């Protein structure tokens, strides 16, 4: 027992040391991608909750990501708020939007939910594009300020990396707690056996809406982090393809598996960037990958043995991802 704990602590410390020193070890470009991997991770964790735990498939996730990004950008630029006030507000605003989408989703059969979310996503995108007074329309928003800590601006990838690292770890921890909590258990109950759940008094409506709201808060916060890193956002950044990428990342990771989603976010973010050299063939490969993956690995990579990493995330005997 003691040995097990020692091993675990050692792994955690080494991982921590590695994570903290990455910017020094790796080039600019790698760190740049790690930041995107972290941002995607936060968004996809939210989506994983929605798909994997409440069974509601959504291709509208980019809408909440975008709402978070725009909200954060506008709050800092137009109202002069600091990033530290803006990001939680962005999350809340995205959460409210999530609540709005949850309403039609309750009345819609599972298969059609995907289309509802697409429709919602397109409408949000259109608003971003047309409501120039608010969003600056097709010109996008330039000059989003970088976050500052005590006057020290996080305006380089190396510095921003630490910010995203903290947020990612917090998101992982938070999602882990949600999933293990009674909320998570109840959501799974609803997903797996809706009628049975209802019969034991689980308020399915409440939990389904909650899943939407929580997942969109995660997406909104991710969007805020995105906006303050790239400092320029445009409706194009939040179109349906982004939702598809989020969905694919979630499915590739195995929707219910937090370690799976983590690995998936990192792998896919880097793969998309590094395969860029192949041009069009990259996209063909991507499409083939999707189709083949669905045939042979519908559960994503969560079924692969992830060994010690997944052991960190689970206490023995109580791991829903297995």
């Amino acid at each position, binding site marked *: 027992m003691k040995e097990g704990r020692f091993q675990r602590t050692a792994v955690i410390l080494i991982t921590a040391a590695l994570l903290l020193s990455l910017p020094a070890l790796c080039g600019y470009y790698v760190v740049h991608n790690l930041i995107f991997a972290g941002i995607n991770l936060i968004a996809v964790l939210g989506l994983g909750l929605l798909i994997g735990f409440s069974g509601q498939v959504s291709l509208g996730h980019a809408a909440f990501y975008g709402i978070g990004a725009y909200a954060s950008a506008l709050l800092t630029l137009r109202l002069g708020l600091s990033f530290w006030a803006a990001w939680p507000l962005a999350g809340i605003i995205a959460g409210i939007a999530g609540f709005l989408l949850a309403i*039609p989703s309750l009345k819609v059969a599972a298969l059609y939910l995907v289309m509802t979310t697409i429709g919602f996503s397109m409408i949000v995108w259109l608003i971003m594009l047309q409501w120039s007074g608010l969003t600056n329309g097709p010109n996008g928003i330039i000059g989003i300020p970088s976050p500052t800590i005590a006057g020290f601006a996080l305006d380089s990838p190396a510095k921003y990396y630490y910010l995203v690292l903290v947020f990612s770890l917090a998101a992982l921890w938070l999602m882990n707690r949600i999933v293990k909590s009674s909320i998570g258990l109840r959501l799974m109950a609803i997903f797996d056996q809706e009628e049975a759940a209802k019969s034991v008094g689980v308020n399915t409506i409440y939990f389904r809406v909650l899943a939407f709201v929580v997942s969109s808060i995660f997406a909104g916060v991710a969007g805020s982090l995105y906006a303050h890193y790239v400092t320029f956002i445009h409706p194009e950044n939040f179109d349906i393809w982004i939702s598809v990428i989020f969905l694919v990342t979630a499915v590739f990771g195995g929707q219910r598996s937090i370690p799976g989603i983590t690995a998936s976010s990192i792998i896919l973010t880097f793969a998309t960037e590094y395969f860029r050299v192949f041009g069009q063939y990259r996209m*063909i490969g991507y499409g083939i990958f*999707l189709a083949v993956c669905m045939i042979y690995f519908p559960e994503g990579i969560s079924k692969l043995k992830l060994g010690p990493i997944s052991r960190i995330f689970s206490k023995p005997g109580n791991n829903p991802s297995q």
Partner: protein
Amino acid sequence: MESLIQTIIGGLSIGGIYGLVALGFTIVYRSLYVINFAQGDVFMVGSFLGWVGFSLTSRYPVPIFFGVLVAGGVIAFITTFLIYKKIHRADHLTFAIASIGVGIVMQNIVRMFSPDAKRYPDVFGDKVLSIGHVYISTQYIWILGITLALIVLLQLFFYKTKFGKAMRAVSENRDMASLLGINVPQTVYATFVISSVVGAVGGILIGPIYFFSFDMGFMTGLKAFSAAILGGIMSVPGTLIGGFILGVTENLGGVYVSSDYKDAIAFGLLIFMLMVKPTGLFGKKK
């Protein structure tokens, strides 16, 4: 007044296209209860093949037309063999993602051959009839005609032919149908082949009006799906009428309300219908 009529006519013609592509969704959904996200790209492939054919020669439009349909059917057959037949029984998310993948592959293969938009020669004639200030292009008439003819053909097929009835039986109860000796895998192939051919027809018809481009499938596919839901995804004539309604409503909204948010009409209608009556205006409850 003339502007109103003009608007409606334009709406009917684009609506016919939506209806044709939507039929593809309907045929697949009715039989297999999955949504084929590649339907819009199938429509695009049909348009591309049509362009290839008509660029070689515009002198034999009819054989080329049927040639494209055959080619479309063959592609559907291959895709089914490689991918669809393995997952059509999986859960809807799995199929959805796989079909998204198929769509991406189709788009990018076509893009390799044609990154530019392409103009169709005016195979349906370039005459424009005018009644007062209302202008009707002969292409619109062809679209309407072929679409209606297809509906009749499809209804005949599903209700009067042995194979069509077999397909309907499979959709009602697969295991029973199999027990009755119906070749279920064959119907799976047939489902995808027919839905692709129908989509390809839409692609050829739209070519002369709106050009062909490798990315034309996405938006059209989405709106076609809205049309299918609107009219009733389980009903063939319903889907087509849904297409007309969507096309006309979109155009009217675009002219008289706001052209900025014209696209939102399609999506708003979709969400509304899904909430209120997901079986569509003409659908029967399942």
